[in-house]
């Protein structure tokens, strides 16, 4: 199906483990974004990408790594998960010439 998907939708992991959250979009949008949602903070930008192989840090990048080898995929990796990274993670994409961002369904990550 066309659109933006995230996997897994739910994940429980232990402190210190590496975990990768996947994001895939079928529109060939050039811009992609990762946000985290925490109560009292709204959504905060972790990383974003303007095109394949072009990424940049957002507001809260520490502890996260991204890559974008293909336009349609934008995985987010927590190299060594911490309890403070327990959150809901949203991926989004946007065409370069428009204003609207399209959000994925979110991944709820719990770090124990």
């Amino acid at each position, binding site marked *: 199906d066309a659109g933006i998907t995230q996997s897994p939708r739910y994940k429980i992991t232990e402190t210190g483990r590496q975990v990768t959250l996947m994001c895939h979009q079928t529109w060939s949008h050039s*811009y992609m974004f990762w946000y985290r949602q925490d109560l009292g903070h709204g959504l905060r930008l972790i990383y*974003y990408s*303007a095109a394949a192989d072009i990424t940049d840090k957002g507001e809260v990048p520490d502890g996260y790594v991204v890559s974008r080898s293909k336009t349609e995929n934008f995985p987010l990796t927590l190299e060594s998960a911490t309890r403070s990274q327990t959150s809901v993670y949203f991926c989004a994409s946007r065409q*370069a010439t428009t204003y609207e*961002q399209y959000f994925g*369904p979110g991944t709820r990550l719990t770090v124990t």
Partner: protein
Amino acid sequence: AQTVTQSQPEMSVQEAETVTLSCTYDTSENNYYLFWYKQPPSRQMILVIRQEAYKQQNATENRFSVNFQKAAKSFSLKISDSQLGDTAMYFCAFMKHGTGGTSYGKLTFGQGTILTVHP
């Protein structure tokens, strides 16, 4: 850097009545977009309405309208004839205008307001 503030953590309204959600922002930019997003319990982010800063006319989408005060940096959302399906978290968001380069297109969100519509 931009900041967006929603000072109402929770609001409630009776079905069919009108409610206004507040949002203020701080920026040195002159050209930008402002948005209201709705997040129902399904967690999906849904764009409700947008406003371009260069437009003086307030945006309207059916029962949803905004009061955009550029000088005061205020951007409130009015929901008329509230419905049970309007129950959700509402986020105000800011985005710099422009389509080139890596600095554009990032959304800065407020903390959110939980709106409950009572029957």
